């Protein structure tokens, strides 16, 4: 038996939708195959394709051959090990990476391949122009002269969505001497929003590393530092024109709208997938296009998916509590009007088991996006 031919046989079978694990394939009498490319695909690519076949089979579907070929010819994105050789191939090379069983690989290795492919799909949507807004939509967005002058500030992830929702209702921010409404929430939530915004914006560290970095430095990330945002708004618009919002309904009533639009609800695993896709995407599109592209593709596709919302692990409870107290104290001391209860800034008791991104769940979401890739809006319409 030639290990190389056996690997080609498995790769060929996977292209056809097979779900046999590599170790079982090694035992098959009819397992040899012929090369269909210059080198045997890496263990990560083969492992990912097998998982994709399993996911498709569970839905009674088959992975199209074009998608299978994309997976097999993909690169492993980002830092870490390159294409890994398969265990059981001929005499392994004396140098280079050690051969592995693709079915025993950490899910993170498979996500690295999947993230690169999803990034390609997201980048492809950039080539298509945005669908033009209808006349009605444009008319709706015109600022009504009788609407109160205001601006929305705060954690970017939420503020962007609220702003867009208000614009769609004819409440375009701006006007003469506007009031700046600072959207606030309990600090754990604001931190999760800051990490989410960063995932869409520039990627960055994992959730625990993100918390650990700022906790070690002894301060909040700028995107979650509410007193700093309030000070910045007071410099820009005047100290008497900043209000802190801890009750969305109160702000909606003050602005004369029925409700405030909230951002898409992405669970912990979904945000982590966006973060990972953003990394290779940064090499495919200009940086200023990345957040918008991710929001309009993955943000919409993953809305409501990805498990529960992120939470802060208890390890950082003391730091979180201290920072929340400081936030509350500084905002209260500055005397900004508050819509809602300022105590809402303080986080409640943290759960015994925190909600953190889990690679297996992130991979499951990625498999869904490989089976049904994001497509440009125009294509979808046609």
């Amino acid at each position, binding site marked *: 038996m030639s290990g190389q031919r056996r690997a080609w046989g498995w790769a060929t079978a996977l292209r056809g939708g097979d779900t046999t694990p590599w170790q079982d394939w090694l035992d098959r009498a009819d397992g040899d195959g012929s090369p269909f490319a210059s080198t045997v695909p890496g263990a990560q690519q083969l492992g990912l394709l097998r998982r994709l076949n399993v996911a498709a089979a569970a839905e009674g579907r088959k992975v199209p051959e074009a998608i299978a070929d994309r997976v097999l010819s993909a690169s492993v994105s980002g830092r870490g090990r390159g294409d890994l050789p398969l265990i059981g191939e001929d005499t392994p090379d004396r*140098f280079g990476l050690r051969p592995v069983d693709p079915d025993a690989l950490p899910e993170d290795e498979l996500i690295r391949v999947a993230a690169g492919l999803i990034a390609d799909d997201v980048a492809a949507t950039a080539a298509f122009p945005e669908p033009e807004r209808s006349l009605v939509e444009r008319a709706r967005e015109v600022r009504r002269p009788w609407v109160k002058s205001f601006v929305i500030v705060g954690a970017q992830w939420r503020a962007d969505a609220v702003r867009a929702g208000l614009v769609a209702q004819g409440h375009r921010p701006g006007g003469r001497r506007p009031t700046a409404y600072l959207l606030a929430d309990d600090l754990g939530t604001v931190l999760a929003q800051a990490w989410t915004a960063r995932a869409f914006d520039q990627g960055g560290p994992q959730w625990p590393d993100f918390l650990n970095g700022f906790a070690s430095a002894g301060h909040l990330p700028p995107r979650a530092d509410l007193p700093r945002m309030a000070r910045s708004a007071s410099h820009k618009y005047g100290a008497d024109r900043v209000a802190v919002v801890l009750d969305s309904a109160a702000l909606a009533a003050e602005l004369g709208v029925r409700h405030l639009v909230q951002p898409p609800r992405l669970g912990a695993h979904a945000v982590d997938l966006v973060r990972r896709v953003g990394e*290779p995407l940064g090499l495919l599109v200009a940086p200023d296009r990345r957040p918008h592209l991710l929001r309009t593709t993955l943000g919409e596709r993953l809305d409501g998916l990805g498990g529960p919302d992120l939470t802060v692990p208890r390890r950082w409870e003391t730091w979180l509590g201290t920072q929340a107290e400081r936030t509350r104290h500084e905002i209260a001391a500055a005397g900004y009007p508050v819509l809602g209860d300022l105590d809402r800034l303080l986080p409640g008791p943290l759960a015994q088991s925190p909600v953190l991104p889990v690679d297996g769940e992130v991979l499951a979401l990625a498999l869904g996006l490989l089976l049904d890739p994001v497509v440009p809006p125009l294509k979808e319409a046609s």
Partner: protein
Amino acid sequence: MSQRVLLHVGTPKTGTSYLQDVLFRNRARLLKQGVNYPAERFDEHFLAALDLMRLRWGGLEQEAVGAWDQLAANVRAHPGTSIISHEILATASRTQVARALASLGHKDDGTGTEVHLIVSARDLVRQIPAEWQENVKHRAAFGFSRFLRLIHDPERSHRVGAWFWGVQEVPDILARWGASIPPERIHIVTVPRPGGARDVLWQRFSTAFGLDGLDLELGTERANPSLGVPESALIRRINRVAAVDLPPVHYRPLVRELLAHRTLSKRTDSPRLGLPPDQYPWIAELTEDWIAELTSKGYDVVGDLADLRGDEPVAEKWSNPDRPNERQVSAAALDAVKALLVEAAERQVENDRLRARLEEARRELIRARTPRLMRSMEWTVQKLEGSEQGRKALGAYRMARGRNSRSA
């Protein structure tokens, strides 16, 4: 289509910065002599490598979108010889290598562009501490002993170990990059052993790249200077306390360039970084395996594979960067503080100068926007305020007008 491509894919810390600087500064001269070094900016091949391998690099990758395809198109458009050189290409996977070679016009059956693969290599005794130091200059906060543990992991499951061997394991780099290239077109340039003549390495590069006899301007200073033990320890401590507050766009000029390269690398009297003596046996054994493998493959060697046998470290001279001499670290820290103060002062001067220019521009803008009549009135008021009689006349005018015109 390009006839010949000299593709230099590594390894880091082998004099590549100097080579690339000579090539970049002489690119116009080279082109006149038929050799294309396609680069509009010094780091163009670095950006192309980031693009090819989809690597993040502290935000620099944002400038790399499409850089490999542009570089490859430039190479294909040149009918003669082209040179591509960047050391991080060493870590490319087989898939990425296949894409890179195909984009340069290489064909597995040998009918395409004649690609020559060049790898410069230095002994691991010097490479291992140099790579840890490079990590430290890129924000790493882990110690040397942890680095050694990570590169000793046979699975290379941590990104540090994967990266180190990805860019340093010469037999594997050549296997990945050279799978479809005949061995006679694969050239290994060895870095001379410590204490050799300084220009030997350049002569070897010149031979490997076919630059002998070409009219080139050498003598540039660009290099990747190294740090001593206390200086490396200091940067690591700075990383631990400040890296999170310094985005890459600020870390690079302040810590890497100002502190590490321009300040601390000048402290050459401190103990030098070196391989711990207890690590030498396995490194020596591995090196012998490498030499045997590289010899058996029949690659062209410019220099001597024996150069890869590093000198055995002397236990009495070795200094542990994880437990540095605190007096030496303090002295290095003082130099660092001084450099930062001078830099801050220079920036303040520059800020003041720019602020004055901004104010001047603002005044000119106001002047340009002020109507001529208003300017005449201001001129008249200024003139009148300059003499006793004028001030009296102005006072009378203001009294008659009923209010102070200056506040109007």
